[in-house]
């Protein structure tokens, strides 16, 4: 199973409610994935600073602050349960190494200039409350509720997977050739932190984009390179793209109004959205990339 959701605001009208909408959507998909949940909220791009979403695991807030302050001075830390958003001018090349070598007990969930990303085990209804998702405003967001199949129920096994700046991926389905694809991507310099199949798809997308492909072309290529069943929602700082494999066993439904585009595995996840009953509602076609 697993449930995936995404919402993209076409106008500014509901920016303050984005978190509330996404929270309701994840709530509605708890039935499809009770094991863990995660989400990425995109806010307006911060030109000066990078934001690093970090899961502290067992480390205490104060200990993290002490440790990180030893290496970088000008930082802003905002805590959400066991996650922290670290804001700094320091570039990813430095911070990624620093976290890995000096504070290996924490794990980086994602980073970029507009992404805020959180994921944790537990029922989605509790996870969204824990991270206060309803309080977020933003331009677009995607989320996932997981029923674990490929790998264990851990934070690392939860979605979204972010493998590059401001990029992330949620996935409903399973990939059958992920071990092969992972091996060839590792040879190409891509890093992986889990045994999970979706992380491979996320890495595949990042790898192609780093070579200059656009997101749409990358997803089209994935139809040839990734075997298995999937509905993907891939987020970037500008919006998100949706793709179902050519068999299209994994569901998706789109609701579009003049103010927003919402995507979910099932309609019940969007039933709470404003004016959804008069929205244009349709099912995305197999093997076709939709982009907003």
């Amino acid at each position, binding site marked *: 199973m697993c449930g995936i959701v995404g919402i993209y605001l076409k106008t500014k009208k509901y920016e303050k409610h984005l978190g509330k909408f996404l929270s309701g959507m994840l709530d509605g998909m708890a039935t499809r994935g009770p094991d863990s949940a995660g989400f990425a909220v995109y806010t307006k791009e911060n030109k000066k600073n990078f934001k690093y979403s970090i899961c502290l695991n067992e480390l205490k807030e104060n200990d993290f602050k002490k440790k990180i302050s030893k290496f970088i001075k000008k930082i802003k830390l905002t805590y959400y349960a066991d996650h922290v958003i670290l804001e700094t001018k320091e570039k990813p090349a430095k911070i990624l190494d620093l976290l890995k070598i000096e504070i290996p007990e924490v794990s980086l969930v994602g980073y970029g200039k507009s992404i805020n990303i959180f994921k944790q085990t537990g029922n989605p209804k509790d996870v969204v409350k824990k991270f206060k998702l309803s309080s977020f405003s933003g331009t677009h967001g995607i989320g996932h509720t997981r029923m674990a199949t490929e790998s264990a129920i851990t934070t690392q096994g939860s979605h979204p997977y972010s493998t590059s700046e401001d990029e992330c991926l949620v996935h409903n389905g399973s990939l059958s050739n992920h071990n092969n694809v992972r091996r060839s991507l590792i040879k190409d310099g891509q890093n992986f932190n889990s045994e999970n199949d979706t992380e491979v798809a996320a890495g595949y997308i990042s790898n192609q984009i780093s070579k200059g492909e656009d997101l749409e072309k990358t997803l089209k290529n994935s139809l040839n390179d990734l075997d298995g069943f999937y509905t993907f929602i891939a987020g970037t700082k500008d919006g998100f793209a949706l793709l179902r494999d050519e068999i*299209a066993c994994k*569901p998706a439904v789109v609701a579009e109004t003049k103010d927003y585009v919402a995507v979910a595995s099932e*309609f019940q996840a969007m*039933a709470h959205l404003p004016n959804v009953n008069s929205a244009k*509602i349709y*099912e995305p076609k*197999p093997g076709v990339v939709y982009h907003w």
Partner: protein
Amino acid sequence: MNFDLNKKTLREVNQHLQNFDRKKNTRKFEISNPQGQHAICAGLKDDIDITIKGHTGYYCAGMNQKATVTVHGNVGTGVAENMMSGKIIVKGNASQSAGATGHGGALIIEGDASSRCGISMKGIDIVVKGSVGHMSAFMAQKGNLVVMGDADADLGDSIYEAKIFVKGKVKSLGADCVEKKMDKKNIDELTKLFKKLNISEDPKKFKRYGSSRNLYNFKIDNVGAY
């Protein structure tokens, strides 16, 4: 009689409709605020009339017998799945596997139906006024799938004895599915079906597709493989 799914649980409403008191004269019901819930009106077995105001989730009116259910909205996966008799009308679009394994009765979809519409159908009549998605009528055994719009790839893959009628374009036919002659007998059958379901269409504008029956038996030419 009206049910509001914001106020009553789906289980209460379904139980009421399934255990309907046959002595009562009220045979008309309305359900509001379905909110995309699954299995609304599943397992009905009486001659009752239900109107659903809004979008429903999976398996709406599944296993239906005798009842007429009209959905003023879209339906999720497997509407009218395994239906035995009665009539289901969808005013909006239908998701995948509409009318799957249906044994009888009629399913009328006024919008589009997506992939695998009529998969493994066993006698149901399905009329789609819009288009159908890929692999529709997959392994369909009996009954009629009538499509006013277009059909996507692999129509009628591995079909048995169900009949497919399409007015628009067919992207491609699946394994063992071929275009067949639309003779007088077929035109009469379709005229009768349209009359029964109160549909004003000209049967002569439809093309017929069905099984070439090449997959029914083992091909003796392949015996050398064993």
